[in-house]
């Protein structure tokens, strides 16, 4: 280490003050100032008593004055007695606002018809507003429930008196020439409870408009001016529509209002004015409001002031004021009536009346100048027809489709309307009064016809559906149309109508075309039948498919028969004579067979509703009973040419039913009409045979048998009867006329053309031969077995054959017969041979026949000749090829 004095450590203590001390100095000053501020500007704590603390939030809800935040809610406590105490801190700069009369109220969003206020609080939350008052400084306040009305400085305060506070509210504006000049600030009931005291202010710049003579009246929001041309609605302002409004007059005088002058608030502008006072009597007030207007051709000429009820006359008495300018029109023959709102499907009238109430219409008498003035009127419900209309009376059967007010049209053009509907004196008809516009009255002459405009014509047929509708209005309201066969022109309609002429109302245009006959009473016809036809009341009656009437009644006749009453329209009366036949065309006939199904119906309507047809049949007999009733036939045929009957007797009714057909060679000639058990315990089957075939079959020798389906191994026969039912076949005889026969259950074997050569075979036993077993020649059936029996001494069997006539010549005296039944099994060294004639013969048995060819052709066999039935055949027999000439 060097000892260098100069390098000795010198420790110098620095006593200099660092400039950094400036910083805390400034800080100290700042801190002191903040402290000072805090001490001097101490926030004031106040208590506001609210009824509830809805939407007041601690630390969030502010207290404002003129939009400036002057404090914050710090604490909310429940009051011991009632409500809540809200503790708030008012910032020091606003403490001067806190005086005894200062008011606090909660501002929250409020939407009313006239104003939306406090909308900002929707987002920012409610706040408490402060309105400074006077008095000593205070820290405890009572919150007011509503925002105090703030009356602008220097505004003129006026007092109004009214009977009621209708549509007047705090905030209701006061207009002058539609400019808002003031506002209602207070509405209070008078101490007596009779009046409403209203306090309002007029802004200072308009205060000069209020004079001593000023009159105030309520301007109802809507001023509707209703005329036929339309509705004219005047609004003073949208605000006044909703909140009402008050306006006033400002006469040209200089007298300012007296201090504390009380103005009367009139209900409307007319109330104070002078006019002709009239009295209207009405049975009920309906929708007629107090103050209803009286309109003359749409122009307001007066107003009903008030309506009271008179107990003596039991009428409402309405006092009305008529504008002096029109008072001279109010004479004896003037009319007053109520115009009502009318909403129907066809029209909407006076819709505004729903809002404003009905009004009173007025029309004056044409020569009012000569008439005396009158001040008491009866208020009609409708306007009476004036002279601009021609009045017409219609007679209708019923009021269906008629409405008062419905229109009367001619070729679709409206020419008038129905004014009223009443019953005639005898209460049988409806009397409709029509008003025809004067300009169209020439259309009406004594030949005019009126018919109903029924709404919808609905036609359904198998070809489709046709809907024909009149305008919707007619569908809904109905209406009447005028029909003139010869369209009149203005020139040739000189013949005036008789004033008392009555017109009939036709149900439709078609009816109208037919004319008056429609109204003559229909002809009543009674029909008798064993059973009621399947018709109902209203079912049609046709003549050549033209509807001429309808079924009016179905009853039981004294005789036990069913009686069907018809009403035949008067214009078809001539069709009902003693030659008229009636028959039932109800429903439809089904003819079903294997070939198909045939449906036969008169008309769709007759299927549904049934129906009766009539026809003039010159040759008919027995169609009218002695009492004048007609017989109701089942068909026209039955009516005109009645079938003739014959009787079959059966042991058993088998499948027979009434209605089963009787056929001759496949042709329907009749049917079974009855099945009865006779005294011999047999079945009598009565057949109705068509008259024209009767002679042919009702002969001795005719045979009747039942044909039914037959399914066997050899084939199926008459399958169609499975569907159509069994029928009776006839084989006509040739004898004398006869009407009683014995019926056969099966087809006779020697039926029809098959009667031929009978021969007899002699055999040891019958073998498999059976009745109806075939007889074959070269495998062709030439006949059949018709009988088999033991011979007289029982030594053998006799088999009777019937050879069909066309094959009779084949049987020769040397012909051999052998059974074809079964099969032939030959078993030999060469093998086995199976022989069978045919499958039918295999089962059914049969007989073969042949004639040797190595002999001379023998003569043809005679009837009832006998042959031997060989027990076995020889092969050589099958090879015979004898030529047999057909005719010899």
């Amino acid at each position, binding site marked *: 280490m060097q000892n260098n004095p100069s*390098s*000795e*450590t010198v420790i110098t203590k*620095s006593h*200099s*003050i*660092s400039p*950094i*001390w400036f*910083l*805390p100095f*400034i*800080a*100290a000053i*700042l*801190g002191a100032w*903040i402290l000072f501020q805090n001490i001097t500007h101490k926030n004031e704590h106040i208590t506001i008593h609210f009824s509830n603390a809805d939407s007041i939030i601690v630390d*969030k809800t*502010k207290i404002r004055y003129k939009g400036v*935040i002057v404090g914050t809610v710090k604490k909310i406590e429940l009051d011991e007695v009632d409500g809540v105490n809200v503790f708030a801190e008012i910032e020091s700069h606003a403490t001067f606002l806190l005086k005894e009369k200062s008011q606090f109220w909660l501002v929250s969003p409020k939407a009313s018809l006239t104003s939306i206020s406090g909308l*900002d609080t929707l*987002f*920012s*939350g409610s706040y408490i507003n402060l309105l400074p008052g006077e008095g000593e400084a205070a820290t405890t306040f009572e919150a007011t429930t509503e925002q105090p009305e703030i009356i602008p400085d220097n505004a003129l305060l006026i007092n109004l008196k009214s009977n009621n506070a209708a549509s007047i509210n705090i905030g209701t504006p006061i207009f002058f020439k539609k400019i808002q000049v003031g506002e209602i600030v207070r509405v209070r009931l008078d101490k007596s409870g009779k009046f409403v005291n209203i306090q309002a202010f007029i802004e200072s710049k308009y205060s000069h408009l209020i004079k001593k003579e000023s009159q105030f009246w309520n301007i109802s929001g809507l001023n509707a001016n209703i005329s036929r041309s339309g509705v004219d609605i005047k609004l003073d302002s949208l605000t006044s529509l909703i909140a009402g409004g008050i306006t006033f007059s400002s006469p040209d005088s200089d007298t300012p209002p007296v201090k504390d002058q009380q103005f009367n608030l009139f209900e409307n502008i007319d109330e104070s004015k002078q006019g002709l006072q009239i009295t209207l009597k009405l049975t009920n007030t309906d929708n007629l409001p107090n103050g209803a207007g009286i309109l003359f051709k749409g122009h307001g000429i007066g107003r009903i002031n008030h309506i009271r009820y008179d107990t003596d006359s039991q009428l409402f008495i309405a006092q009305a004021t008529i504008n002096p300018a029109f008072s001279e029109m109010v004479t004896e023959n003037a009319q007053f009536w109520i115009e009502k709102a009318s909403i129907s499907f066809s029209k909407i009238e006076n819709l505004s009346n729903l809002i404003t109430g009905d009004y009173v219409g007025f029309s004056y008498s044409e020569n009012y100048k000569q008439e005396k003035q009158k001040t008491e009127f009866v208020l009609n419900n409708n306007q009476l027809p004036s002279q601009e209309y021609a009045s017409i009376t219609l007679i209708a059967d019923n009021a269906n489709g008629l409405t008062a007010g419905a229109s009367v049209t001619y070729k679709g053009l409206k020419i008038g309307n129905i004014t009223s509907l009443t019953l005639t004196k005898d209460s049988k008809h409806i009397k409709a009064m029509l008003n025809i516009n004067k300009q169209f009255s020439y259309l009406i002459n004594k030949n005019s016809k009126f018919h109903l405009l029924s709404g919808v014509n609905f036609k359904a047929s198998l070809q489709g559906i046709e809907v024909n509708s009149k305008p919707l209005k007619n569908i809904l309201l109905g209406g009447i149309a005028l029909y003139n066969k010869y369209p009149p022109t203005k020139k040739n309609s000189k013949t005036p109508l008789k004033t008392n002429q009555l017109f009939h109302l036709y149900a439709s245009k078609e009816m109208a075309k037919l004319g008056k006959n429609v109204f003559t009473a229909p002809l009543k016809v009674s029909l008798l039948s064993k059973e009621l036809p399947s018709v109902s009341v209203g079912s049609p009656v046709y003549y050549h498919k033209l509807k001429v009437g309808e079924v009016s009644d179905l009853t039981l006749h004294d005789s036990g028969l069913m009686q069907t009453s018809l009403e035949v329209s008067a214009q078809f009366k001539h069709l009902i004579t003693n030659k008229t036949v009636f028959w039932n065309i109800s429903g439809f006939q089904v003819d079903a067979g294997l070939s198909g199904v045939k449906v036969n119906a008169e008309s769709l309507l007759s299927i549904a509703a049934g129906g009766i047809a009539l026809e003039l049949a010159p040759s008919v007999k027995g169609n009218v009973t002695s009492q004048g009733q007609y017989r109701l036939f089942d068909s026209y045929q039955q009516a005109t040419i009645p079938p003739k009957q014959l009787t079959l007797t059966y042991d058993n009714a088998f499948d027979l039913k009434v209605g089963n057909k009787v056929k001759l060679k496949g042709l329907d000639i009749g049917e079974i009409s009855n099945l009865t058990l006779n005294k011999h315990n047999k079945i009598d089957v009565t057949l109705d045979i068509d008259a024209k075939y009767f002679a042919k079959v009702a002969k001795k020798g005719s045979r009747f048998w039942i044909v039914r389906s037959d399914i066997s191994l050899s084939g199926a026969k008459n399958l169609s009867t499975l569907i159509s039912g069994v029928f009776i076949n006839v084989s006509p005889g040739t004898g004398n006329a006869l009407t009683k026969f014995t019926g056969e259950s099966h087809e006779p074997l020697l039926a029809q053309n098959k009667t031929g050569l009978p021969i007899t075979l002699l055999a040891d036993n019958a073998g498999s031969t059976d009745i109806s077993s075939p007889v074959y020649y070269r495998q062709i059936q030439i006949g059949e077995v018709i009988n088999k029996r033991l011979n007289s001494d029982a030594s053998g069997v006799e088999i009777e054959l019937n050879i069909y006539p066309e094959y009779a010549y084949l049987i020769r005296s040397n012909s051999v017969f052998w059974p074809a039944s079964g099969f032939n099994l030959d078993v030999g060294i060469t093998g086995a041979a199976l022989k069978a004639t045919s499958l039918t013969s295999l089962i059914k048995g049969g007989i073969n026949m042949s004639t040797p060819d190595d002999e001379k052709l023998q003569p043809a066999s005679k009837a009832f000749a006998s042959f031997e039935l060989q027990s076995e055949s020889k092969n050589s027999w099958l090879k015979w090829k004898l030529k047999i000439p057909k005719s010899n």
Partner: protein
Amino acid sequence: MDKPLKPGISAIQQNRQLCRICDTDCSITGNATYCPHCGSPISPRIKNSQQKTWALLFTAIVFIFPANLYPITYLLKNNTLYPDTIFSGILSLLDSDMPAIAFIVFIASILVPILKILALTFISFAVHFQWQLNPKKQLIAFSIVEWIGRWSILDLFVISIMVAVFDKGNLLSVYPGIAATSFTVVVVTTLFAAESFDTRLIWDANIDAK
């Protein structure tokens, strides 16, 4: 000249001083004003360290009150101003069920600045009055304060970001309050106070006391 320093004895006693710029030591006597290596101003101890620390600490102490008592932010929501102090912010965080964040904010914004001031004040007092305390423990405390102190500035970043982002006029805006400025002053002054404090004085104080 460059003989190694002896441990256990302060450098100033060994006539050595450290250049705070280039981290080399030199003798005090030979280099009174400038570092022989880099030419920076040099002194064995930071000049007026205690004075500076005291002055800055004092400023911080003054401003810590408005920083905590006045609103740090104003939230303008739907035309209404909602002031928030640091503490009310922490409370509303707690209300919003975010206790962890509330705790962090409480540590960073309230506890740390106050503790920082307290710790610095304590160490400064210890140095000034030459209390016989364990210098190593004091150094640890100081290091913690210095390290954690810088995090307090985070609050200010958050506020400045919020002010920038939430600027939707009357609908939603954030304005800094008086406390924000005060808090900034507290953070900055305490940072500088820690910076200007020369930790070697702790040992000097111990040596002087002996």
